[in-house]
C-alpha cells in the first residue's frame, strides 16, 4: 500500500487541490476579488452556453467527432497491430513499428501546416490534392470553405496521428498472449488470418474495453489542440468542427471570464462521469473480467 503513497500525494496536490477552484463556475468572477472572494452568480455562467443557440450543434459535433475519432483509431490500431504481428524479421518489424509511430511526435501545429499544403497551396489556391485531382480533370475544391468533409478529414488526421500509437498498445497486448493459446489453432490447421481473427482479436477485447471506457469519460471533451490548430477561427468550418473546447476558448478570449470556462468544464466533467458510470456498469454486467474500476 505504501507503494501508492507517492502517487496519491501527487494526485492530491496537483489534481485534487485545484478542484477547489471549481467554485468559480458559480461565481461572477472578477480579477480583483480572485477565486475565492468573487460574488456568487448561481447558474448564470451556465446560462451563457446553453442559451447561445449554438449549444446543441456544438454538443453534437463534440460527440460525433469523438465517436469517429475513438472508433477509427481503435479499429485502425487493432488492424495495424494484427498486421505488424505478421511481419517477421525483427529488424523489419521494428522498422515499420518506428515508421508508423512517427506521426505521434508531430505537433498539431505542424499537422495543420501539412494539411494546408495538401488541401490548399500557397495563397490558398491549389494544394497537392487539388493538383492531383486536376490531372484527372476533377475540378478543384476549396476545402477550407466546405464544412461537409471536415469530420472525415479530421478523423483521417487522428488516425494518422494515433494509428501507430494505438497499434503499439495492442501489439504489446498481442505479445503478452501466451503461445499455447495458438497451439490448438495450429493443430487444427487454421490459417494465419483465421488465427488473427478468431484467437487474437477476441483476446484484445480487454485492452479495447479499457481504452473505450477511458475514452467514453472524455467524450464531451473536444480535441482542442488538433482542432484549433487546424480550423482556428475559420468560421465557415464551424458547422461541423466547432466543439465545446474551441467554443470555450473563443468565449474566454472575447469575454475574459474564467467563470464561464469553469462552468462549461464542469458540465463536461459531469457528463463524462455519468457516462463512465454507465459504461462501467454495462462492462461489469457483460464483461466483468475487463472492468478496471
Amino acid at each position, binding site marked *: 500500500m505504501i507503494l501508492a503513497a507517492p502517487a496519491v500525494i501527487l494526485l492530491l496536490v496537483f489534481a485534487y487541490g485545484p478542484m477547489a477552484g471549481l467554485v468559480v463556475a458559480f461565481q461572477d468572477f472578477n480579477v480583483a476579488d480572485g477565486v475565492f472572494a468573487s460574488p456568487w452568480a448561481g447558474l448564470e455562467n451556465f446560462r451563457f452556453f446553453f442559451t447561445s443557440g449554438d449549444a446543441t450543434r456544438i454538443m453534437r459535433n463534440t460527440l460525433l467527432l469523438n465517436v469517429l475519432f475513438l472508433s477509427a483509431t481503435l479499429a485502425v490500431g487493432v488492424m495495424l497491430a494484427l498486421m505488424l504481428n505478421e511481419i517477421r524479421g525483427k529488424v523489419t518489424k521494428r522498422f515499420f513499428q518506428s515508421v508508423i509511430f512517427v506521426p505521434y511526435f508531430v505537433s498539431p501545429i505542424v499537422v495543420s501546416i501539412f494539411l494546408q499544403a495538401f488541401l490548399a497551396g500557397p*495563397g490558398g*489556391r491549389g494544394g497537392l490534392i487539388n493538383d492531383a485531382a486536376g490531372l484527372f480533370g476533377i475540378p478543384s475544391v476549396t476545402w*477550407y470553405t466546405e464544412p461537409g468533409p471536415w469530420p472525415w478529414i479530421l478523423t483521417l488526421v487522428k488516425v494518422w496521428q494515433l494509428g501507430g500509437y494505438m497499434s503499439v498498445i495492442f501489439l504489446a497486448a498481442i505479445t503478452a498472449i501466451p503461445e499455447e493459446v495458438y497451439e490448438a489453432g495450429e493443430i487444427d490447421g487454421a490459417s494465419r488470418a483465421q488465427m488473427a481473427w478468431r484467437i487474437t482479436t477476441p483476446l484484445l477485447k480487454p485492452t479495447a474495453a479499457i481504452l473505450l471506457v477511458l475514452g467514453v469519460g472524455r467524450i464531451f471533451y473536444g480535441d482542442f489542440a488538433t482542432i484549433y490548430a487546424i480550423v*482556428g477561427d*475559420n468560421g465557415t468550418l464551424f458547422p461541423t468542427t*466547432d466543439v465545446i473546447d474551441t467554443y470555450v476558448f*473563443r468565449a474566454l478570449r*472575447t469575454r475574459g471570464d*474564467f467563470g464561464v470556462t469553469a462552468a462549461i468544464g464542469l458540465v463536461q466533467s459531469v457528463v463524462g462521469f455519468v457516462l463512465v458510470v454507465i459504461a462501467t456498469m454495462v462492462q461489469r454486467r457483460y464483461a466483468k473480467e475487463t472492468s478496471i474500476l
Partner: protein
Amino acid sequence: MSAHHTFSRRSFLAGTGAAMTAVGIAACGNGSGNGNGSGSSTYSLLLPGDTPTDWTRVRDAVNEKLRADLGFEIEPQFINWSNFANQSLLKFTAGEDFQTSLSARWLNIAQLIEGGSLQPMDDLLASGDYGNLTAAVDESAFDANRWSDGNVYGVPAVNSAARIHCYVARGDLIDRYAGGEITSFDQLEQFWYDVHAGEGIVGYVKNNSVFDVLGAPTGTMFAEGWESPSMIPLYFSSDSLLFVPSRDAASSGVTDAVPFWEYQPYVDALRRARRYYEDGIINADRLNVDSATAGALFKSGGAATTWAITDGANTSAHLSQLEAAVPGASLVTLLPFADGMDARPNQTFQADNLVVVNAAAADAEAAMALLDWVSIQENHDLLQYGIEGTDWTPVGEDAYEPTSDYANFPGYALSWRIPLERRYSRMSESEQAWFEWSKDYNNFTQDPFAGFIPDLSAIETEHAQITAAIGEYGNPLWAGAVDVDEGLDNLKHAVEQAGLATVQEELNRQADAYLAGQ
C-alpha cells in the same frame, strides 16, 4: 538470477529516490523567480512576442544602467502572441507580482479595469515626478485614451499621431505595370488585375481582418475610404459587430447607430472582397492563414501588395528578405487618397497599444519610474535598438542602421514615444514621407466619437454571443469566401438571435450620453 533482480530493484529505487530528491530540491530551491541576487530588486514585466535575438546581452546592459539610475533591474517575460491575451489575463487574475503589461481594447483592458487590476495614473502623472514621460507623450494622447470612468489607465505606446491602414507595394512591379506611380484606388485595382494576369501572383495578401473591408476610416479593400476617409464605426470590441453612427450625430446629438450592413459603402466593399476572392486577386486562405505566413508570401515575391500601417516599420519589415528572394525588388508605401497628402482622415487617436501598470504590483511608483526612464532618448535607444556601436549606428539626425541581429524589441508594449523614435536608415522615400505626415496631429480630423469607449458590462452575455456569431458568419464575409447576400442573411439571423436589439440600444444610449457630455 539474483543479479538480474537486484538490478531492477536498484534501478527502480534509484528512480524513486531521484524523484523524491527532486521534489525536495524543488520545494526548497524556490524564490529564484523574484530573486534579488545583487541586493537590488528585480521587477517583472509582461511583453508580447518572441524573445528578441541577443536579448540577454542587451538586457544586461539595460539592467546595469537601470541599477545605477533607479536602483532596480527588470526581468521581462516574453509571451508569444497567440497566448498573450489569455496568459496576461491569467497573470492579472492570479494576482501575480509584475509591474507593467501591454493592454488594449482588443486585449482584455475592459475586464481588467472592471476588476480593478489596473493602476489609475492621473495622480501619479500629475505629481510631476515623471517629467520625461509627460514630455515624451502629449497630454492629448492621454486624454484620447481616457476610460469611460474618467481615469487614465495606460501610457499610449505609439510612434505617430495616427496609424492609418494602407499598403506596402512592390515598386519594381509598379514600374512595370502601372507606369511608375499609383495615386488612386482605381489605379491600384487595375494594377492588381494586371499583375495577376502578367505574373500569376495575387494582388494583395493578408490574413483576415475586418478593417480591410469595413475601413476605419481607410481599408485596403474599402474604395470609399480613399475618397472620403471619414467613417469610423463604433463597437464594443473590434472582433464583434461594427455599428455605423449617423453622419450628423455630432450636430444633432443623436447617434442612431445601425449595424454595418445598413451602410451601403460597406456592403459594396464586401462585394468587392468577394469579387477579388473569385478573381484570384486576394489570397484565398485569408480565413486560416496567420499574419507571419501571409507576410512571408509577400516577402518571397508572391504578391504585389500587402497590408501596412503608418508606423514607420514597413520597409524594415519586408525589404531585406524581399531583396534576397527577388533581386532588384523595391518597396513603396501607398496611401492612394483622392486628396493625396491633403487628406484629413478622421481619427479617434485612441492608441492600439497601451502600457498599463498592474495594481497588484509591489511598487507602482517604480513602474512609473521605469516608464519615465524609457522616455529618455538614450535609454529608449538602448532598449529598442540595442547597444550603440554594437547593435546599431546613428545615421543623420534621426535614423539608425542595425548592425547586429538584435531586433524586434516590442517597443509598442513599453517604450514607443513619438519624439524619440528613430527611422530605419533604408526606409523608402514614400514611407518616410507618409510616416512624417502621420506624426502630425494637424493632418487628421478629430472624430465626433474620438473619446467614446463604451462600457459593455450591462450586455456581456449578448455581446459575447454576437461576437461568436461574427466569428462564424462575419469572418468568411471579410475574407470574400462566401456569397455576400447569403452570408449577410446568415449573419443577420445569428446576430438578431444573439440579442442585436439590446446591444444596439445600449450602444446608442451610451453614445448619446457621450455626445451630450461633449
